[in-house]
């Protein structure tokens, strides 16, 4: 029974992926991509990785979907603006080599991956056992959080740095046009729904952050939900992105600053970079995660809100569907 479900899920995932690549219509491809992300989240659940499933559903399907729909709306608005023609990609036939090259490299990578699976070396140490063994020293009870924020916190530090750089670049690329007028899509129903739905979304975001210390959850998932709430507010016509520009910039960098400060300040006590004293490890991790959640939420939202306003306000309708 479970096998049948898994096979169906796998087939549906492949069909969705094919749909993303082969659909002529960009908007359809984006919708397929969102469906692909949701199915992928289900796959992660089936593989017993609820953390990844949460992140995939919130970031991969939800926020990336919003960004892509926004991009498609920009593209079509731009095209309609320039030539009054429907956007289509059937213009130039790709050269022969530009088809052979990807196929060739894909086949090579496939063979290499097969080989990697086939001649898999025996793991010298069992990493799950190692994590479970040193879990009491980490300060948290959930192994994923322990790995992300303690044992391998270097990766997380770099991740937040990459996100910060990305949003700085996005802000730098923003054309210096006049601010988009707030409330261009002030729909009474959407407005009322967001007013009632955003508080529970914020509660869920904080809950997921808090839950991260003993069960699946954590900063990235919580931050994604926070960002979703902010995107929702913006789409509903609340002009929140203009509320506090300088505060926003501090908030964007806050997570990285706090993380780096904690990471370096432990060196004063003679410890190596990024190791927490065991007695306060749990508190430090939670503090860092809370700041990270705040910053990740703002960063993901800024990636969306820093985009130049569309020529025609078409994106406000379509993005809303991803909030559930």
């Amino acid at each position, binding site marked *: 029974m479970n096998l049948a479900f898994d096979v169906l899920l796998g087939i549906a995932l492949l069909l969705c992926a094919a749909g993303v690549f082969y659909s002529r219509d960009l908007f359809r491809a984006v919708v397929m991509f969102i469906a692909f992300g949701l199915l992928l989240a289900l796959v992660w659940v089936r593989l017993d990785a609820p953390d990844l499933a949460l992140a995939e559903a919130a970031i991969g399907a939800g926020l990336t979907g919003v960004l892509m729909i926004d991009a498609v709306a920009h593209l079509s608005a731009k095209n309609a603006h320039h030539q009054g023609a429907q956007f289509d990609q059937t213009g130039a036939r790709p050269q022969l080599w530009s088809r052979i090259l990807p196929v060739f490299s894909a086949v090579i990578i496939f063979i290499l991956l097969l080989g990697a699976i086939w001649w898999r070396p025996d793991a010298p140490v069992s990493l799950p056992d190692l994590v479970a063994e040193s879990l009491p020293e980490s300060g948290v009870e959930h192994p994923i959080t322990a790995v992300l924020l303690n044992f391998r916190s270097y990766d997380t530090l770099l991740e937040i740095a990459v996100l910060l750089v990305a949003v700085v670049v996005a802000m730098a690329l923003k054309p210096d046009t006049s601010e988009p007028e707030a409330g261009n899509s002030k*729909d009474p*129903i959407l407005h009322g*729904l967001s007013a009632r*739905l955003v508080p529970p979304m914020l509660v869920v975001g904080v809950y997921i952050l808090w839950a991260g210390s003993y069960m699946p959850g954590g900063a990235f998932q919580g931050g994604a939900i926070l960002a979703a709430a902010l995107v929702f507010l913006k789409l509903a016509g609340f002009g929140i992105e203009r509320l506090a520009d300088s505060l926003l910039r501090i908030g964007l960098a806050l997570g990285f600053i706090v993380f780096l400060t904690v990471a370096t300040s432990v060196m004063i006590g003679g410890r190596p970079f990024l190791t927490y004293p065991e007695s306060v490890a749990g508190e430090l991790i939670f503090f860092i995660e809370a700041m990270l959640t705040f910053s990740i939420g703002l960063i993901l939202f800024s990636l969306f809100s820093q985009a130049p306003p569309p020529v025609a306000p078409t994106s406000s*309708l379509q993005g*809303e569907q991803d909030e559930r």
Partner: protein
Amino acid sequence: MMYLQIALICLGCFFFIVGTLGLLRFNDAYSRIHAITKADNLGLGLLVLGLLPSAVNAFQGIKLLLIWLLVLVASATASYLIAHYLKQQQEGDV
């Protein structure tokens, strides 16, 4: 109790299948919205009702009901927005 659950879940699945069929076969966006809201509202509601007796504790049951409620609100608003946008566009064309 189990037979009741099975019946409810099967009925819920039936509504999902019918709604999806309508989404694929109807040729008008308004009719499609009409079809898919049946799947969202009734189908999911029946599924949740069918799963409720299997909930381990009260919290799980409340969470299930909350999921249904949130989907109800979100799908109703999304359908309204799509229909509203469509209507605006049609009026703009005329």
